[in-house]
C-alpha cells in the first residue's frame, strides 16, 4: 500500500478545491448531457392513489422500453405526492420547478391543482404535459403555450354521448355527478349536446364528493319516472353509486349511462355484476384491437403482475411517448423551449387509443375516437366492450388564442 506523502495529499486537496469551486460552472456546461428530469405531481396516497399509480406505470413502460435513456440523456423521474390537495400540489410544483429544475413537468389528477399550478408553469415557461386533470379551461381561456394535455378535456368524453343517448337509449334522462368543478363540466358537456338532440333532462342532483349513501338520490330517480340516468362518478363514489343503483332494483327499469370513469378498471372489480350493462363514453378500453394496444396490454400486464391497463395507464403511456419523441427530435436539447413546443405540436404517433396528435390551436389531445362501451362479461372477467365510436373529438377551445 502506498503511503500518503505530503505531495499526494496536497495534490488531492487541490483537486478537491478545484472541483468544489468549479462545481456550478461544470454542472451548467454539462446540463444537456445530464439526466433528463421529468417531474411528476400526482396523488400517491389517499383515494386517488390508484390513478397516480396507473399513470406512473404507463410512463415507466415507455421509459423502460427506451432503457431509461433518450438522446444520450438518462431519464430521471422525480415523483411528488400531491395528496389531491391544491395547496400541496402547488407547493410540490414550485419545488420541482425552482429547486429540482425539471426539464418537463407532468400530472396532476385534480383539476383544482391544475388550475392552481397553471400561472406558475406559464410564468416560468416550464413545459407541462397534463396527464389527467380535465379542467376545460386549460384548453380554453386559460390555455398556455407551455401546457399540453395528453388525457382529455372534461368536455371530450361526454359531448358525443348526448346524441347517442338521445338516439339509442332515451330522450328523458336524469343526470347526476359529484358537486365539484369536474362533475359540473362533465355533465354540462353532455347536457349541451343531449338537449340539442331533442333530449329532456327531467331531474338532476349533485351529491357531495365522497358520498357514502346514495339512497335519497336513488329514491328520487325512481320517483322521477326517468327511463335513463347519465352519471359521472369516479373512485369510491363510482363503486358506491353503481352498487346502490343495483341494490335499489333500479337496473330493471332504468338504463344507467355515463362518462367512462364510472366503470374504469380501477372500480369495475369492486362493482362486480352490479356494473353489467352500463353504457359509457371514453377514449380507451383495453379491448381495442389495434396492434399498438394489443402489444401495450400484453407488455403492461407482464410488467405489472397481470394488472389490466386502464385509461389512466394509456394517458401515462402517451405522456411518456410524447416526451421521448420530442426530446429525440431536439437531439436532447430541452433548453430551447420554443423549439420543444414547436416539436411537441407536431408530435404524432400510434397510441393504444389510436392515432395520437395534439390540437395546435389548444395543445389538447384530439381524441382519435370516443368509444361507446358496454360493460359485459368477457374472458378474464368484466370489461368495457366497444359497441360504437365517434371519430376526431376536438375540444371547441372557446377563448383560447394560441397561434394556430
Amino acid at each position, binding site marked *: 500500500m502506498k503511503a500518503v506523502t505530503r505531495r499526494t495529499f496536497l495534490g488531492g486537496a487541490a483537486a478537491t478545491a478545484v472541483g468544489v469551486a468549479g462545481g456550478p460552472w461544470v454542472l451548467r456546461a454539462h446540463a444537456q448531457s445530464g439526466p433528463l428530469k421529468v417531474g411528476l405531481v400526482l396523488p400517491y396516497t389517499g383515494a386517488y392513489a390508484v390513478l397516480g399509480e396507473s399513470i406512473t406505470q404507463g410512463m415507466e413502460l415507455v421509459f423502460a422500453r427506451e432503457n431509461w435513456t433518450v438522446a444520450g440523456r438518462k431519464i430521471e423521474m422525480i415523483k411528488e405526492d400531491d395528496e389531491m390537495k391544491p395547496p400541496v400540489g402547488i407547493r410540490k410544483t414550485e419545488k420541482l420547478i425552482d429547486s429540482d429544475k425539471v426539464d418537463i413537468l407532468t400530472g396532476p389528477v385534480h383539476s383544482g391543482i391544475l388550475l392552481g399550478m397553471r400561472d406558475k408553469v406559464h410564468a416560468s415557461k416550464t413545459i407541462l404535459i397534463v396527464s389527467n386533470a380535465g379542467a376545460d379551461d386549460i384548453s380554453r381561456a386559460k390555455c398556455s403555450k407551455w401546457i399540453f394535455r395528453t388525457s382529455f378535456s372534461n368536455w371530450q368524453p361526454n359531448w358525443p354521448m348526448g346524441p347517442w343517448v338521445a338516439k339509442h337509449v332515451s330522450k328523458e334522462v336524469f343526470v347526476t355527478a359529484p358537486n365539484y368543478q369536474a362533475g359540473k363540466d362533465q355533465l354540462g358537456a353532455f347536457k349541451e349536446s343531449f338537449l340539442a338532440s331533442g333530449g329532456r333532462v327531467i331531474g338532476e342532483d349533485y351529491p357531495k364528493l365522497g358520498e357514502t349513501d346514495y339512497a335519497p338520490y336513488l329514491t328520487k330517480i325512481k320517483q322521477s319516472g326517468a327511463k335513463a340516468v347519465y352519471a359521472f362518478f369516479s373512485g*369510491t363514489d363510482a363503486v358506491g353509486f353503481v352498487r346502490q343503483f343495483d341494490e335499489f332494483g333500479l337496473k330493471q327499469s332504468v338504463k344507467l349511462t355515463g362518462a367512462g370513469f364510472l366503470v374504469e378498471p380501477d372500480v369495475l372489480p369492486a362493482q362486480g355484476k352490479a356494473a353489467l350493462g352500463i353504457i359509457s363514453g371514453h377514449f380507451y378500453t383495453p379491448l381495442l384491437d389495434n396492434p399498438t394496444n394489443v402489444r401495450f396490454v400484453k407488455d403492461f400486464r407482464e410488467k405489472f403482475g397481470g394488472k389490466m391497463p386502464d385509461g389512466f395507464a394509456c394517458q401515462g403511456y402517451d405522456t411518456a411517448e410524447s416526451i421521448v419523441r420530442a426530446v429525440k427530435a431536439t437531439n436532447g436539447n430541452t433548453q430551447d423551449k420554443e423549439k420543444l413546443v414547436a416539436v411537441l405540436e407536431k408530435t404524432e404517433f400510434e397510441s393504444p387509443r389510436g392515432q395520437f396528435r395534439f390540437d395546435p390551436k389548444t395543445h389538447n389531445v384530439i381524441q382519435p375516437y370516443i368509444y361507446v362501451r358496454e360493460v359485459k362479461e368477457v374472458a378474464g372477467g368484466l370489461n368495457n366492450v366497444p359497441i360504437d365510436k365517434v371519430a376526431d373529438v376536438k375540444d371547441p377551445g372557446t377563448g383560447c388564442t394560441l397561434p394556430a
Partner: protein
Amino acid sequence: MGREPGRARLPPSDRVPVVSDVFAQALNGLAYGVLLFLLSVGLTLIFGMLDIVNLAHGSYYMLGAYAGVTVLMMTESFWLALVVAPVAVGVVGAVVERLCLRPLYRRGPLDQVLLTFGLIYLFEDLVKWIWGGRIRSIPAPALLTTSVNVLGATVPSYRVFVIVFGLAVAVALWLLVEKTRLGAVIRAGVFDSEMAAGMGIPIDRVFTGVFAFGAGLAGLSGVIAGPIQSAAPSIGATILIPALIVVVVGGLGSLKGSLVGSLIIGQAETFGKAWLPGASMLMIYAVMALILMLRPQGLFGRPLK
C-alpha cells in the same frame, strides 16, 4: 336545478303519492341512521370510559371492512365474516390500548389526540401494504340481494336487515350495560374510575376490554356497511366526521345519546339530500348547532362542569 318538469307531464295514475315519497326517504334515513349508530356507539363507549377522543375510530371501521373482505375470500360466508372480522379488530384494539394509549392516560388530551390521529395514517399505510390500494367490496349475502315493498316504498332487503340488526345490537348493548354485573362495572368506571379502582375493580383490564369492545363494534359496522359502501384505505378518515358529529349531538359517553343522535342525523342528512340538493351537509351542521345551542352537553350528555 330541474324542478322535475317531467313529473307534471306524467298521467295522474302514474304519480307517486307524496306521502309515500316522504315515507321512502324516512326509511332510507332510518337505515343510514342505524349504520351511523353502529359506527359511533364504540366511539362514545370508549370516550365515556377512558376519557379518550379516539380519532382512529374510523380506522377500526376500515380494518373491519378489510378483515371482512379477507374472510369472505377465504370462506365465502358473509355471516362468518360478520363474526370473525369484529373479533380480529377487537384484538388489534386491545393491543393498541395496551402498547400505545396506556402510557398516555396521565398526559393531556392533546397527546392522545395526536397519537390517535397518527394511528389513522399508520393503519391507512398498513392496509395499503397488506391489501393494496385498490377499492374492494363485500357482496351482500345471497339471501338479501332483492328488494322488498314496505307500504309502497321499495327498500333493498339488505337495508331492512341493517335496520333490524342495528336495533337488535342497540337492545343487546342496553341490556349488557344496564342489567349485567359487567355493565355495572363499566358504569362505575364511567362514573368515577378512581373510585371504582378503590373498590377493587381491576380497572386497567376493564379499560382494555372496553377499548377492544369499542374497536370491535367499529369493525362490525365496517362489515355491515360493506355491501352498501366500499372498502378503500382512505375510508377510515372519511367516516370519522359523521361519527364525531353523532357523538357530539348525542352527548359524549352516552349510549342512548349515540342511538338517538344517529337516528336524528340520519334523517336530517337524508331529507337534506332529498329536499335541499347542494345543501345537505349544511342541514346536519345546522341540526348539530341547534342542539348544541339548546344543550351544550349534547342530548344525553352529563352536564358540563
